[in-house]
């Protein structure tokens, strides 16, 4: 009987059969061809004809490779949307809604001087709310089978977006707003970044790290390590 496993691997190409997933694809295709060949032989078809017929049933290998690759890409894109972008968006919206509510309630930001030049401006209740926001984002990502880095990124997404906007808007403001370009101070920019990017980012990331540690401890307890 022909070695269908080898036949499939030869036709799919060595590179495509290296990862676990690709090797499972090869196993599946080989088992399909094997069953088809066995069925033809069981009907009394001579071996040579059965082999030829089975090879025809495989169809165009290039088309098969491309089809599998495209299906995988679609799957990876769908996964990324569910595991990263949707949870990130959830975290961003919740963080902004929380901040808007605090501002509506006329909660005053705290000003804290660090050294002579640095002044941090932050909403303490907002920073305290961020771990809850992060928990929701991480939960949404994990529910979609998000892995570690995806959960992290989704959770710190608001800080990344604010940081990105800061870096995007600042050069434009310097170029087009004379008021900004004449009065801007490096310490002011750094204070703004620290208040609106670093502090919220730390609050979000610390929450994820604490949750990860709790999770791994729980796993250790369950596995009896």
């Amino acid at each position, binding site marked *: 009987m022909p070695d269908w496993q080898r036949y499939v691997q030869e036709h799919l190409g060595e590179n495509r059969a290296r990862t676990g997933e690709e090797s*499972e694809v090869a*196993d*599946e295709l080989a*088992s399909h061809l094997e069953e088809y060949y066995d069925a033809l032989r069981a009907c009394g078809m001579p071996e040579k004809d059965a082999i030829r017929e089975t090879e025809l049933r495989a169809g165009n290998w290039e088309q098969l490779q491309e089809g599998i690759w495209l299906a995988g890409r*679609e799957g990876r894109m769908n996964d990324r949307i569910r595991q990263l972008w949707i949870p990130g968006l959830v975290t961003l919206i919740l963080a902004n809604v929380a901040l808007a509510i605090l501002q509506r309630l006329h909660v005053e930001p705290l000003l804290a001087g660090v050294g002579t030049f640095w002044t941090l401006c932050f909403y303490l209740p907002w920073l305290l709310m961020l771990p809850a926001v992060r928990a929701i984002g991480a939960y949404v990502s994990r529910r979609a089978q998000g892995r570690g880095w995806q959960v992290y990124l989704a959770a710190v997404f608001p800080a990344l977006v604010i940081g990105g906007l800061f870096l995007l808007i600042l050069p434009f403001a310097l170029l087009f707003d004379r008021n900004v370009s004449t009065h801007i101070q490096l310490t002011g920019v750094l204070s703004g970044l620290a208040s609106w990017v670093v502090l919220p980012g730390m609050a979000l990331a610390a929450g994820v790290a604490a949750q990860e540690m709790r999770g791994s401890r729980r796993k250790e307890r369950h596995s009896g390590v």
Partner: protein
Amino acid sequence: MIRTELKRGTAELAILSVLEQGPLHGYEIGRRIEERSEGSLHYTLAALYPLLYRMEHRGWLKAEWGTGANGKRRRCYRLTAKGKKMLARMRAEWADLFRALRRVAKVSYA
């Protein structure tokens, strides 16, 4: 014989329909479709498997490795709740299409 272009559009409906009765592996899915269509619909590996993987990624099917009656490893596909909904939707769409074609092109179906 049904042309490839026409068959391509029907494959998703055919796969979901044969899986409605219970989980099947790839070869059996192809065999049942061929059997039920009396040989009019048969798919090569190049047509069948990319479609199965795509449907799995879309959450219409769930695949699991198991061992068959002959002791060989097989990847079995089963319909998910999302797949069942999609099947109902496709059936309705195809029925609409046939009704329209019957009126326009005098196509008849059983």
